[in-house]
């Protein structure tokens, strides 16, 4: 028995060890929130028995955008341009629609330079897990305000931020995202379960994760610090991902707790904490977000999900064979067709 358990912790159902999901050693600062998120991506994929080759990684530019090099070395990845990960991912994921995309971005990368592409990939409901490692600051360029920095935040040699912050979850919701979550790098379990749920969602899954920058924005009183997060996190629910075809062993109370069935047959169980919350209700989502702002809390959990809407690739009616594997005769019209064509060209 003991022996069996040991084996089970080493290999997952598809026979891979956790090491098969690792990336290169991180070159980020020690304690950076981004590292902890990378680890949860590794764990989530390992525990979900996902073949790493079926994931494709994307990022923009920033410390956060370096992270994809630190997980899933066996997955393809593309570190694109600052603020323009979404378009890259959109194009690439058409190549083989059986692949799952994980995009990692920063708050600068998404909410400053990347606002346009962020809003539009959300609107298109591209099948992409879109993780924002949100630290309220530009890490890689050494500590300028990003668009998510709170009004009044004072940073070394930058003065005081005079603007209202961009709220990424709010933006996603208003922009018709079909999966909106917020989490906290200091709450690894929740991060992991959310990533799992996101990977099973058929559409864009925006996860706004407060991920402290220990070097440039980790004062205890500021909204993207570990200390603040630990003290102010309020989870909407306790979230557990249940793989497809697995029996639900978590005990939960119907009516009170909530189960959401995902595209691939898996589900998330949302155990009620302070109050019942239905993440399929867009109005409710707006209410809690607005409340969170008013009460100055770090509200985390699955804020909104819509499992009905078609994802971008669904509307294109593509064959099962990935487009990038189609042989010549399936992508070049027949020799005969050219005659008909010319006849049409008056």
């Amino acid at each position, binding site marked *: 028995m003991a022996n069996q358990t040991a084996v089970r912790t080493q290999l997952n159902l598809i026979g891979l060890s956790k090491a098969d999901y690792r990336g290169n050693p991180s070159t980020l600062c020690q304690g950076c929130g981004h590292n902890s998120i990378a680890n949860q991506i590794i764990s989530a994929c390992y525990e979900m028995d996902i073949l790493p080759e079926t994931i494709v990684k994307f990022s923009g530019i920033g410390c956060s955008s370096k992270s994809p090099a630190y997980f899933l070395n066996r997955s393809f990845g593309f570190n694109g341009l600052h603020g323009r990960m979404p378009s890259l991912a959109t194009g690439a994921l058409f190549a083989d629609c059986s692949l799952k995309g994980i995009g990692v971005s920063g708050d600068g990368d998404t909410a400053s330079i990347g606002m346009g592409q962020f809003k539009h990939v959300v609107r298109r409901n591209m099948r992409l897990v879109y993780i924002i490692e949100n630290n309220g600051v530009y890490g890689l360029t050494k500590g300028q305000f990003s668009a998510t920095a709170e009004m009044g935040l004072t940073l070394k040699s930058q003065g005081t931020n005079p603007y209202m912050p961009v709220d990424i979850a709010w933006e996603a919701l208003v922009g018709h995202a079909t999966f909106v979550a917020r989490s906290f790098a200091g709450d690894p379990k929740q991060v992991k379960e959310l990533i799992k749920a996101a990977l099973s969602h058929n559409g864009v899954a925006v996860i706004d994760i407060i991920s402290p920058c220990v070097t440039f924005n980790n004062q205890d009183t500021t909204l993207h610090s570990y200390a603040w997060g630990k003290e102010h996190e309020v989870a909407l629910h306790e979230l557990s991902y249940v793989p497809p075809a697995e029996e639900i062993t978590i005990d939960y109370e119907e009516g009170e707790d909530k189960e959401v069935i995902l595209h691939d047959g898996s589900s998330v169980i949302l155990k009620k904490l302070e109050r019942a919350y239905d993440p399929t209700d867009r109005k409710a989502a707006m209410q809690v977000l607005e409340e969170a702002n008013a009460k100055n809390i770090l509200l985390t959990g699955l804020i909104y999900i819509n499992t009905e809407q078609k994802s971008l690739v669904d509307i294109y009616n593509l064959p099962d064979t990935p487009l990038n594997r*189609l042989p010549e005769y399936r992508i070049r019209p027949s020799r005969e067709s050219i005659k008909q064509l010319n006849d049409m060209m008056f």
Partner: protein
Amino acid sequence: MSAVNTLEKSEVTKDRSGVVNNFSITVSTVNGSGSQTANLTILRAIFKMGVPVSGKNLFPSNIQGLPTSFTIRVSKDGFLARREEQEIMVAMNPATFQKDIEGVVPGGVLFYPDDLKIPISRDDIVSYPMPVKQIIKEAGIPSERRDYVANMVYVGVLAQILHIDIDKIFSALDFHFKGKATPIEMNFMVVKDAAKWAAENLVKKDPYRIEPLNLTSGYIMADGNTAGALGAIYGGVHFVGWYPITPATTMPEMIQEYLPKLRKDPETGKNTFAVVQAEDELAAIGMTIGAGWGGLRAMTSTSGPGLSLMTEYIGLAYYAEVPIVVWDVQRVGPSTGLPTRTAQGDLIFANFMGHGDTQNVILLPGSINECFEFGWKAFDIAERLQTPVIILSDLDFGMNQWMAKPFEYPDTPIDRGKILWEEDIEKLKGNWTRYKDIDGDGIPYRTVPGNRHPLAAYFARGTGHDENGGYSEDPQVWHDLLERLKKKFEYAKRILPKPVITQGTQHEIGIIAFGSTEPALNEAQYLLSEKHIPCDIMRVRSIPFSQDVGDFIRNHDRNYVVELNRDGHLHKLLMLECPDWATHLISLAYIDGLPITANYICESIIKREENNHG
């Protein structure tokens, strides 16, 4: 090569002064009034009569209500470039009436609506008033349609006076309305009524007429954007990321129109492509690069402002070696410039675009047929070289109807370049690295997402990387990779389309050009030969230049470089190509938004030659 080259020389008599099948018709109207249908109908009817013809639409950058003109050149000799002279003017627009009249050659012809109460200032031209309103009214056209079919009146009157075959007009309408009976009949009725009215009421006093020939059979008519779109479809395009911009918009629109017809998967009946309208050009190029990296044949099409916006991402594609195809249908820049006028002003930018050391493969189609051919070939080149290929077309090609030879089925199978799949990696025992030059051509091997071999994946990036794609700041690694890219571009010269040279004999004078100036060039060559100034022509079709380009230049004492821009872009690039012969290159660059004329080329050369010898 364009139609003009391919007319059998024996069939034509070189007569530029004649009045039969040899003149230009300009229709001056306001845009948004549906005159495009009328003008294309005339154009197509003449074409169907076997007479070489071209049409150029000179339209404003708005949607409705501003002056617009359409010029049809009829040329039995197959000279189809723009001309400065207008023999026949159809002046429908009161706002430009005076100016329009002034533009007519002495002895020319004026057609005008008879309710235009403006005195005609010329007595050296023939004028035909047309009772447009009356004919429309008598034809019983419902009032909400009247504006649209009113233009058919001049079609009918011109048909009668110029001897355009009324049956061919019917065929043209049938084609235009895709066989839809109601509009065809309504329009054709007006044409017939107008022709009848003209027959009964007008006496022909001018010498111009069309006579049937058989010089267009075997030819088609198409615009360059459609040709490029079809080329892409035959090239197996999988993915188009685009954003609307004049004059490039109709290319993706035509792709969208024809793809479903031509490219249903023979196995499943499903789509083998995706066309995505992006939110802007930054996204369009990002999607295209993502798709190209993913192993799709990916393209975008845009015009100058969009190309400028794509600068940074194209630089990444160059350095990360992602195959993509970018059509730039040029309009007049800098900046927003003249969105509805033609130019060749993006060449030097396309060549040097992007910070740092960059280089792009550039294709320069010079005919509708090459728009089609390069449309498919560009994917082979991009995938073979793993680099962006920029195709420079222009508004004159893109949005005007040209005579062309039938499109030819690609003569080579699709070349997907050096892609490794699972079994290839297996064979190599996983022994591959993304950015290593194995074959000595500077081109590495690549894998694409979806490849499920555990050793297939790599991490692509725009930051410094070593042969494995691993992040590197090592000076030597950077230097070596950049040198390899240079080598790749050396290799490119071998596979890119060679220049087209007309008359290979050695002459003193060479004319060098690219793109849509082709018809004017051929006409100029003829005109110059008549003046006993023989010259050779080289039409450059790709960059980096192959050896042939330099050879031609060095074989000529004076090379005139003709192009539609201010700064002599091709001229500059050729000087850099042939520093030893740089002073033998003379720029004849000119830009005002109009297609070039043979006269301009001719006169510029004669003037320079006189200076040289004088």
